[in-house]
């Protein structure tokens, strides 16, 4: 007995539809009641919003295809200019009205031509005045196109005087779309996020046939326990579930535990999932690398992620240059005297130590510094005498190429170049440790 009742469509189709859209029954029934019968008019535009992976694209496509309503589907990221978008719609419209002619691309420059050509195309016998649905996915891209595209689509029913409804799908709320002087307001429909129960139900759907549904459901439970507080995105969770299932089944395959021995299975998988959060979840390593690691042996061992490649081996003076750059970026210039001169005399404690937490440079980001200051600090932190040769300067340039330093401002020859250090505290501490330099002592924020 289907939940959806609709005089227009046969019961069997509705039953089939219901099986394809778990946990989205109420949204689908609202949509069906808004669509009405095939020849009825509907809202000129419908705006559907919801979180990432809340099923908007999938549900709309499934509904329109299962009920065989005439529709066109366009992704606004694929057709990122108005011309591509309009031509794509007209091409799909041609294919819609008759099977035989799959014509060439219709050239269409402006919205005016689009309206005219649309009117011509929709007069055909096949459509018989049924509502044509134009679905624009990732509709937030429409804001980047010309200013008349979004208001034009909202009013397409009025301009073309045909039975057409435009459906916008987006993650962003409607208030951020509305043009300045107003527009024809669409009917907004919200696709709620999946609750943890829903996620469990949907993910358990994909269990491989070799194992029982309960076994897989227990696995999903564990996975959600680790990842749910961080990520509720259905696509990500599916990806993680698929990748880690073989590891979970290992004790059962090796014969060490039965399917019901949850404690041992949990112990096996827990550290693995935590490791996954630092690597595969962040896309630091690819999923094929992850699978290889699982196959090699039990312990994941030393995982070289993408950001690990930033740890390059630098020559001796380059390391000191980088340290000097970091100190120059994160210490205010007036404190250099205190850190780097042998005899800095008396410094009033009160003024010096007064600092607010917010102005801590580690929160605000690195500041630019001139080349002279860098060299001055370099000379004071390196033990032996350093000559300002071309060697040193070329090392500075190679640090810029490695993007450990950035050049700030214009290539102005008059003032001299200014740089900024763009490495993190952990990185510089690791480097300083290799040359036995205690950088924390020299940082103003850690006084």
């Amino acid at each position, binding site marked *: 007995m289907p939940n959806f009742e609709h005089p227009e469509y046969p019961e069997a189709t509705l039953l089939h539809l219901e099986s394809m859209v778990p946990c989205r029954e109420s949204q689908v029934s609202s949509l069906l009641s808004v669509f009405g*019968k095939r020849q009825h008019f509907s809202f000129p535009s419908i705006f559907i919003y919801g979180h990432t992976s809340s099923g908007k694209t999938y549900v709309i496509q499934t509904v329109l295809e299962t009920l065989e309503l005439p529709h066109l589907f366009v992704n606004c990221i694929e057709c990122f200019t108005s011309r591509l978008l309009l031509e794509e719609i007209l091409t799909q419209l041609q294919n819609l009205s008759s099977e035989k002619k799959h014509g060439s691309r219709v050239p269409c420059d402006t*919205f005016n031509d689009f309206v005219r050509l649309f009117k011509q195309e929709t007069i055909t016998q096949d459509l018989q005045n049924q509502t044509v649905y134009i679905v624009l996915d990732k509709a937030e891209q429409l804001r980047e196109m010309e200013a008349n595209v979004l208001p034009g689509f909202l009013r397409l029913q009025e301009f073309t005087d045909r039975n057409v409804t435009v459906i916008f799908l987006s993650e962003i709320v409607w208030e951020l779309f509305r043009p300045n002087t107003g527009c024809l307001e669409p009917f907004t429909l919200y696709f709620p996020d999946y609750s943890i129960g829903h996620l469990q139900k949907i993910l358990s759907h994909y269990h491989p046939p070799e194992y029982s549904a309960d076994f897989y459901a227990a696995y999903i439970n564990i996975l959600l326990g680790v990842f749910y*507080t961080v990520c509720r995105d259905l696509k990500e969770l599916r990806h993680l579930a698929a990748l880690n299932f073989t590891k979970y089944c290992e004790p059962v395959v090796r014969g060490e535990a039965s399917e019901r021995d949850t404690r041992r299975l949990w112990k096996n998988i827990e550290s693995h999932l935590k490791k996954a959060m630092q690597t595969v979840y962040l896309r630091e390593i690819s999923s094929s690398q992850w699978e290889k690691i699982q196959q090699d042996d039990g312990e994941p061992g030393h995982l070289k992620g993408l950001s690990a490649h930033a740890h390059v081996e630098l020559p001796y003076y380059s390391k000191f240059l980088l340290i000097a750059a970091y100190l120059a970026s994160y210490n205010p210039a007036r404190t250099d005297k205190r850190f780097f001169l042998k005899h800095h005399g008396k410094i009033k404690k009160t003024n010096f130590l007064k600092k607010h937490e917010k102005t801590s440079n580690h929160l605000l980001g690195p500041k630019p510094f001139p080349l002279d200051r860098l060299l001055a600090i370099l000379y004071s932190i390196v033990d032996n005498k350093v000559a300002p040769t071309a060697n040193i300067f070329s090392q500075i340039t190679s640090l810029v190429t490695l993007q450990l330093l950035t050049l700030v401002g214009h290539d102005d020859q008059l003032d001299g170049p200014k740089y900024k250090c763009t490495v993190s505290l952990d990185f510089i501490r690791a480097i300083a440790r290799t040359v036995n330099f205690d950088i924390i002592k020299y940082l103003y924020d850690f006084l």
Partner: protein
Amino acid sequence: MSKRKSKETSSATEECISQVQRIFRERFCHQCPSGKLFGLELQYKHLLELLKRTTIHGESNSALIIGPRGSGKTMLLNHVLKELMEIKQVRENLLQVHLNGLLQTNDKIALKEITRQLQMENVVGDKVFGSFAENLSFLLEALKKGDRENSCPVLFILDEFDLFVHHKNQTLLYNLFDISQSAQTPVTIIGLTCRQDILELLEKRVKSRFSHRQIYLMNSFDFKQYLKIFKEQLYLPAEFSDKTFTQKWNKNVQSLSEDKTVQDVLRNHFHCSKDLRSLHMLLMLALSSITVSHPFMTGADLLEASKLCRMDSKANIVHGLSVLEICLIIAMKHLNDVYEGEPFNFQMVYNEFQKFIQRKAHSMYNFEKPVVMKAFEHLLQLELIKPVDGPSVRAQREYQLMKLLLDNSQIMDALQVYPNCPTDVKQWATSSLSWL
């Protein structure tokens, strides 16, 4: 009693309900031309007079119809035109050109469209004109050479008039108004716009040629009239096929308009926006639940529809965030409170989050910095936070300044309804500045 009622209601057949749906959908979604006008009698008379003078007496004129969105400008114009077309003389003579600022985005396209609508493409052929004015006057000359010496009156209707004002040099507007002043062909120009300050946007030379005739549509009805409009919009027309059903339906509508809950719903709606378009959306939503088993509208339907229309969309989005993302939003809220709304960057938010984890959190795991960064970027993607000075290539991602697009009351309300919110997170949100 109930048995008899069910026998009566089952008389609402499939066909009947389908017809009802069709009528109302055309009325509310498609703005069918036989819709009624409310409270616009004066404006109607004024416009009708104006157009009659052009079409029958050959006077040139120009006017602007100004009113907020959804106040009935296009509908008024269509009604007037319908009445005009009933006069034989007008029907045979009048030429109409409908232009829209959203479709004709520059003057070249506009001119091509005018040529097309006057069906002059063959006459123009491949001619090349020196200027816009030449082209336009050629078109109007060609109209004259039709069959008679008196030229046909032309009616130019410019929808979204405020968009034509932004074209280069306002050439189209200048030429149209110029022609309306120079009395060669009787030409009337009617502009429809939602901007009240439209006259300030016109250039001096255009403004001086404009007749300064303005017709204002101001949605100037009070709540009692609004209720009457509600009733009128829901009545089935007398020509409807099933007479008994029409009677029952209209009686139902009458009782609805006297129902207290319905009046409250309508009053709330009226206080938000007076225009009829939003009323149409509300009624359309309520009507979409009419089926054979539920043939008459109830107050509950209207209440449901009203709730759908007035949902807070940002609160809905916050409801779907993960716990880590909620913690980041609370950290941003605290930063906004302490530093009075100054922009923040990721490093500051992370710092605040670390303070929470180290001192107060029992249920939250201390996530690595890249994981927190990914959650932060998800918030950026959802446009709940926005960079202050546009995407800049220079600044590192962690140090780019952002601002939060939610205010404190929205955050606190959203936390109340957030499912399975850990208690320490909730307490952190409600704690004041000096909890350190």
